[in-house]
């Protein structure tokens, strides 16, 4: 039962991801992304991580997607098409087809290999590692053993933020472009 549910959810997540890329309107992309997030949240639940599933819904579906929707509404991109349509235009070129064929062939090779592979054993969970399925266990791990990666992540976010601001900031009027910048 769990296995079947997992496969169904995995397919939903993949379809959602494809929808993000293929949807014609930005609104369609956001809705597809929502489907992926929900499917992922249920997969976390199946794996026994209630808190992660909740956080996934609250943070991603609740906060980040709403922000996306706001941006799309504010930029008035939602008016481009109210219906959910898929666009396959990027896949029409010959090069894309060749690349797709190669990728498909590689995926098939991988699938066949995985099919033929016999797994020696499923590894045991590290016995010394505490359980992280509860909120308390997760917090102890996150702010204990993994405190350095946690802080590295905060630095990563800061760097990303500064980088985005530096790129997105409009050029000030008094700021002349550097010499030789308008090369063809």
């Amino acid at each position: 039962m769990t296995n079947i549910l997992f496969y169904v959810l995995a397919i939903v997540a993949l379809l959602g991801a494809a929808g993000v890329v293929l949807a014609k309107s930005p609104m369609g992309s956001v809705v597809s992304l929502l489907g992926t997030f929900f499917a992922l949240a249920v997969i976390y639940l199946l794996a026994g991580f209630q808190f992660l599933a909740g956080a996934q819904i609250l943070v991603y579906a609740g906060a980040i997607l709403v922000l996306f929707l706001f941006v799309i509404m504010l930029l008035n991109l939602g008016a481009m098409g109210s219906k959910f349509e898929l666009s396959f235009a990027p896949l029409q070129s010959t090069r894309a087809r060749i690349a797709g064929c190669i990728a498909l062939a590689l995926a098939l090779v991988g699938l066949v290999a995985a099919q033929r592979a016999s797994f020696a054993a499923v590894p045991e969970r590290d016995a010394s590692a505490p359980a992280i399925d509860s909120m308390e266990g997760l917090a102890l791990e996150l702010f204990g053993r993994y405190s350095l990666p946690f802080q590295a992540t905060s630095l990563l976010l800061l760097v990303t933020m500064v980088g985005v601001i530096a790129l997105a900031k409009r050029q000030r009027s008094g700021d002349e472009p550097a010499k030789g910048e308008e090369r063809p």
Partner: protein
Amino acid sequence: MNNAYLDGLASIAPEIVLTVTALGALVLDLVAKGRDSVRVGYLTLAGLAATAWFLFGQWGQPSHTAYGMVAIDQFGNFFKLFSTAALAIVVLFVMHDRRERRHGIGEYYFLLLGALIGIFFMVSTGNLLLMVLGFELLSLSSYSLSGFHKGNRKSAEASMKYVIFGGLSTGIMVYGISLLYGLTGTIDLAKMAGSANLVAQVSSNPIPFGIATVLVLAGFAYKISLAPFHFWTPDVYEGAPTPVTAFLAVASKAAGFGALLRFLGALFLDQGGTPLGEYGTRVGTMLALLAAVTMTLGNLAALRQPSLKRMLAYSSIAHAGYVMIGIACMTRGGFTAAMYYLAAYYFMNLGAFGFLVYFEGVTGSDTVDSLKGMGFKAPLISMVMVAFLVSLTGLPPTVGFYGKYLLFIEGVDNGLMWLVVVAALNSVVSLFYYLRVARALFLSKASDQEAAPAPVLTGFVTVLGVATVAFGLYVTPLQAWATKSLDLIRSATGS
């Protein structure tokens, strides 16, 4: 506050100093309202000097911190010190680059320092989670930096291509890591290598492990621009501001190699006879094939480049191929040779890019043709450039020659004769395009372009040139350092 916590903080002091410096640069630029760009540069240099001082303080016995995630050892120090020095030189480039915009300088230095922190995490951890975070820290800073010339189409294109390629390869790599985790139940490399489960899996059916390894290696191959993951390199290197290109070509690439050496070293090195060790030789054969393809592609493409910047980009692809000879050996000697060559690569490539910064400032162009006759206008820096070119080709008496010599010896010793022949032929090909630059400098008729003096830039490029020749003549210290650094790789990853 207990003492263990403070000790832990002390052992990541270089990273903390870098973070504080980065924030300081950002704030100082904000307070000075973008007018005082020189002072921000000096602050960054001071921070880098403090970092180097703390790194020297960590000389000695290897230790672990942050629950065994960060290894403080000679191997990490080797790459950290070189990256810190490389960044200091890049900052000097920025300060003396006539084309560099002055506004947004705080963000510029902040992102460079952020990239350096990423490098520090990458080369000093045996934990794949922290390694990926370091990878991303470096990558995300590099994406923004390569697009820093706003309004320039090439710069925007470079940034966009870099983001797409980088995002895809990180995704592939993380997928491979998730497979490795599934096979071993841990993300710590040392525990992974000791996992009984993995050994059983590899000896009965190595295919799942093979797929995982190839996927992870794809992520590394992107960072060090190994074929067939090199397509982003020429465009990004050409579009990015030249000091950033120097940073990407030297520090970022060497850091990718550092992380790759740690990954391969922890899993496969010194495992002769065991199933994992035997599988390592097969991975080595695959890497040897990639090395041959990479150096040939890089050199052949470099032949036809009119732009010096693009030529150096392709040449850096070719050099990644040379370094892979040592790694493909999958022996201690091979790894040491690769590290020596990387050290050589720091000197000669930074120098070559320094020349490019100077020369772009003078002529506003980066084509080899516009170099004509510059050798007589700016004799010192041009002569030093010829030394770098000789070293890049791999001719004596330079550090590049000895590095290549070591790589070739290790290759022959480990049965990669065919690869060494390919590399030797490639060196001959590279001679053509490197000499083209030297010919334009000294054997062509002078143009009427005046060479403006840039004493500081000329000064430290000359220092790099002297180092290139000096370490080529007196090879012992650098080689001893590389050997010593590698000796600790095993103990570094065990916790």
